[in-house]
């Protein structure tokens, strides 16, 4: 991130903040959607996080740490959205008929529903760790720094979350395996 832009926004430059918001808006929204699994909630969380960025920016001591700091504010906004309502309604998406194979050859259609169900059973704490690590490719120590929690807690949460997702995938695989055996 352009630290000069951050510094100017810290000083109250609304134009600089507008440029910042445009630069980080997509990334924040992408993360919010993946944590909350709901378009409306993600938009609300992104909007609140950006407003909090503007409001609290003067308190950011090191402009070079802007990215991690902004993700922390976003995750907090996701917590708030998650607490505000429990409307975890699934986002229905019409899939093209010829979209069974993912980018790396994985049959995502077969797994999508299981993952969606398994992911929704996770708390926001666990989802945030999965998304920061597996979507943003953040190393675990950076996830810990971003969320302000010990690295051991991050590892524990990631392990728990991946175990839950694996159980969700395996749960649906079992009946098919039994049928195949018969």
């Amino acid at each position, binding site marked *: 991130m352009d630290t000069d832009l951050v510094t100017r926004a810290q000083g*109250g430059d*609304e134009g600089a*903040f*507008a440029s910042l*918001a*445009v630069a980080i*808006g*997509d990334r*924040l*929204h*992408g993360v919010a*959607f*993946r944590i909350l699994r709901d*378009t409306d909630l*993600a*938009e609300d969380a*992104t*909007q609140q996080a*950006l*407003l909090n960025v*503007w*409001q*609290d*920016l*003067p*308190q950011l001591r090191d402009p070079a740490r802007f990215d991690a700091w902004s993700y922390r504010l976003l995750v*907090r906004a996701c*917590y708030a959205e998650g*607490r505000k309502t429990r409307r975890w309604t699934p986002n229905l998406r019409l899939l093209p008929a010829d979209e069974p194979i*993912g*980018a*790396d050859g*994985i049959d*995502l259609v077969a797994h*999508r529903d299981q*993952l969606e169900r398994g992911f929704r*059973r*996770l*708390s926001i*704490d666990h989802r945030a760790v*999965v*998304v920061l690590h*597996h*979507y943003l490719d953040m190393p675990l120590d950076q996830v810990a720094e971003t969320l*302000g*929690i010990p690295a*051991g*807690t991050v590892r*524990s949460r990631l*392990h*728990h979350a*991946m*175990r839950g*997702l*694996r*159980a969700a*995938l*395996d*749960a649906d*695989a079992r009946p098919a395996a039994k049928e195949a055996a018969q």
Partner: protein
Amino acid sequence: MSTDHDVTRIVRSWLEEGTTVVPDRVLDAVLDQVPAIHQRRLRWPARRFPTVNTTALRIGLIAAVLIVAALVGWRLLPGSISPGGPPAPTAKPTPIPKLNSQGLLPAGRYQVDATLPMKVTVAVPDGWSTDTNWVVIGPNGNQAPNGIAIRFYTVKNLLVHPLTPSAGAISPPVGPSVDDLVKAMVNHRDWTTTGPSPITIDGYVGQVVHVTLPAGTSAATPFYLSGDELGGDVYGWVAGQVFDIYVVDVGGKRLVIDAFHYPGTSAADLAAQQAILDSAQLTPIP
């Protein structure tokens, strides 16, 4: 059975799906509000006052002192009549901050910001921190060998196999009372408990059960005291980890507090944990 590598690849591919562009209306709404929102600035050191005419200042101070003394003396004269007027303003109660941030907590009283059917506040001493909105963690963290923490939640049911959450919840589900949950914990074949013992927190009665997590518990196979969909998403991750589980009836609603520690936790931290529990103030929400 999927391998860890398969699961990671599938999850990563799945996460790539979905929106990556923030709608313009979100940015527009933010930028429309910015001019009306003041930035929160850091507090600066106390401002130095410019040099003033000290003679004028002294005269002013003396006059102020004389006026105050005259007013006080008049009010204290025998038989004097109160000047009346509106009563002196009383200090407004300071709002209790909520445990909804992460990191070190300044010593003070905090409200547990979890989705609980009652208001819960606790006094937290120096050196303790919070992780999420319902956890208070000791000065040495919450990990073995000497960590300590307190968590607040509700529990609707228990799992059939605490080390295998995919096996689901017990059926029929646990009833709503303190006794129902305590009996379910004590009688559960996979729970090794001592107690229960009667307790009182802020005048509300309940019971405490002590649980030591069995061999086989690890970060890879946590022992689930409850599950997310059951109201808690609560687990322990070290064999030998000790849980004191307080179940309290607060105006007909069940509150569960788990105060956990390890064999290596210091006596001072255990005493601080007990003090936090003793400081709890519980208020039913109608």
